[in-house]
């Protein structure tokens, strides 16, 4: 049980997908201008990422490994993720048009969110079992959502700041992301305690 909690906490804080593993920067920079969209994106990614971790584990364990097809891992994971994203988009469009509109073109972007591919691959590398895979994926996604929300909060406030012209927009956002990453380094070592 404790190890499960450590998996989730580690994925959320210590090895935060965005700030420590530096994955999923595209939506992190792109959809974090407003808190609303950041939350929506985080929710959608959480769903997709958790699903992707479970599915990819099953594919790897029951399809690829028995047939010695590990070299197809990346390829088959991408295809699976793309399908899950498509499915999510269709479902969201039908059930929550508002969210769909808010997410706009960023929903398909989840397909190319490297975090969504990266976390399942990390799962395989860490030899997690199904439950651990799901938890790790969920934790990573929560960490991603956390990063998105915190970042969006700061960006909303920064909109009013008198940032030097050359640093406005993406430049200052990158610097901010860097400093946030620095702050998250403070969590280093917490997952290795005892």
């Amino acid at each position, binding site marked *: 049980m404790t190890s499960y909690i450590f998996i989730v906490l580690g994925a959320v804080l210590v090895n935060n997908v965005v700030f420590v593993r530096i994955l999923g920067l595209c939506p992190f920079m792109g959809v974090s201008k407003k808190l609303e969209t950041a939350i929506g994106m985080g929710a959608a990614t959480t769903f997709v990422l958790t699903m992707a971790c479970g599915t990819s584990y099953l594919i790897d364990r029951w399809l690829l490994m028995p047939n010695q097809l590990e070299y197809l891992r990346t390829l088959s994971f991408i295809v699976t993720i793309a399908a899950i994203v498509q499915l999510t988009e269709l479902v969201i469009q039908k059930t929550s048009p508002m969210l769909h509109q808010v997410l706009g073109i960023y929903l398909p972007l989840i397909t190319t969110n490297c975090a969504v591919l990266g976390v399942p691959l990390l799962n395989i590398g860490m030899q997690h079992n199904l439950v651990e895979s799901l938890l790790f994926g969920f934790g990573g996604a929560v960490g991603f959502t956390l990063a998105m929300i915190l970042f969006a909060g700061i960006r909303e406030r920064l*909109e*009013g*700041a008198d940032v030097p012209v050359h640093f406005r927009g993406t430049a200052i956002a990158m610097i901010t992301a860097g400093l946030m990453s620095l702050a998250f380094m403070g969590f280093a070592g917490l997952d290795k305690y005892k």
Partner: protein
Amino acid sequence: MQLFDFNGGVTPDYHKEASTQSPIAVSPAPTFLVIPLHQSIGGTPRPLVSAGDRVLKGQRIGAADGDMSSAIHASTSGHVVAVEMRRMPHPSGLSALCVVIKADGRDEWIARQSFDYRSHTAAETRDYLRDAGVVGLGGAVFPTHLKMSPGKGDKLDTLIINGAECEPFITCDDLLMRERAEAIIQGVVILRDLLAAGRVLVGIEDNKPQAVAAMTAAVQAGGHQDMAVVAVPTRYPAGGAKQLIRVLTGIEVPHGKRSTDYGVQCFNVGTAHAIHEAINLGQPLISRIVTVAGNVAAPRNYEVLLGTSMEALLTQSQPLPDTDRLIMGGPMMGVSLPSKDVPVVKATNCILAGSKKLFPPPPPEMPCIRCGECATACPADLQPFELYWFSRAKIFGKAQEYHLFDCIECGCCSYVCPSHIPLVDYYRFAKSEIWANESEKAAADQAREQYEFRQLREAREAQEKAARLAARTAAGRAAATNALAVASDATSDATPAAAPVAKSATTPATEPAQTPSPQAALIAAALERARAQQVQPANTTNLTPEQQAEIAAIEARRAQIRAQAHPHLPPDD
């Protein structure tokens, strides 16, 4: 009696002693009076007089424009010299329509009759007050008759009379209460009766003991058991209506809500006095008490006829030579006037002469360090620094989320700001931008509706036309060809048969753009007529063929744009 407290507020130096040393003086009637038609919240009254008319003192010269407005009266007898645009006592320095009266010195009143409000319906009394021009004299000039509905259950719990007068320098209400307490109480009685108020609380800041004593005496003399004069702690802005209601009753009236819905209503003492004069004496609102203070040798209160030039009034108090500005209102909320040559209006409770010494120019504005002093001082419990942050960056939506419109512009935040930021200026800017945006949005919505209606109509017309044309076939074509021939002649009117083709806005330019279109024929013909009628527009006397071709080309382009707009419509042929 239990008093409540409001958060925030500040205690600046009050400077009230100087102008309370002498009694209210009557400012002499000037030769010329400039009476703006728009002196209250709401619609601009319609002028009822024109140049040359003789008017009597108290005669209505501007009629209320609907119910959300208030009438305007001549302040003295004389002749109307002009109804024209004059500079207003407004921060913009812009002009507005005013009635200019040359006084004849006789000061001849209209026939004055008291109004027995007990034998009239409430609606009739309200109309009477509207036509008597009674508005709130605390500075907001909201038409009083609009505040006269008791709200739920036809009864009001508490009627509050505002004699707090919290702004530094201003003492007009103080002196009015000292000298005319009985008249005020008579006005309060009328208000109490009309609003069916259960009790009346007169709130006066405790730095005006003489006013408290005078009002208490007047209440006792009248034997009013349901009235109480309450001294409230002196702290700016205790005289704000919302703050005074809170202090006296504990009730908080939110922004945009009517206080009657919460069982309270608040009137200024000056307004009560004006109601007494209008109803009991039959005198409409033509004068008011104005404090003249600040950088003057003899600060004092005057009873001033509305329309008197501020300069004339100021001179009576002998402004000091280093006076560099004129402020209407107090030092916390008053407006800097662009010129001395503006009239005293219903909103003028104080004229403040300023100097560099008295009101030093603010030190340079520094960035906000979010120290939170402003939030501590804000009587509306806002976060002024957040409002500033978003107003400065013109992120108005966010400013509204932080309740920009709950700001009463009392100036406490600017007063305490260590960075010397003119915070209120940012809020005024943001508010007027938001209002402008809203009216723009309304205009855009109307335009969209008009546009869509037009599109619908055009589509329908085009379809009808297409049907007609299809029926006509070759005959129509021949007529059109004829029309072209005729058009190139440009001597006679185009044949009626050509008209449908000429007007076919949906034709996707079937003819080459360069050839003269039937429209050109129409225009030429019209020009011909114009020439015949001797109304020759200077720039069209010699319309060269080149110019005609240009017009035709413009037409063709227009047709193309139209065609793009309706690609789905069937072509005319």
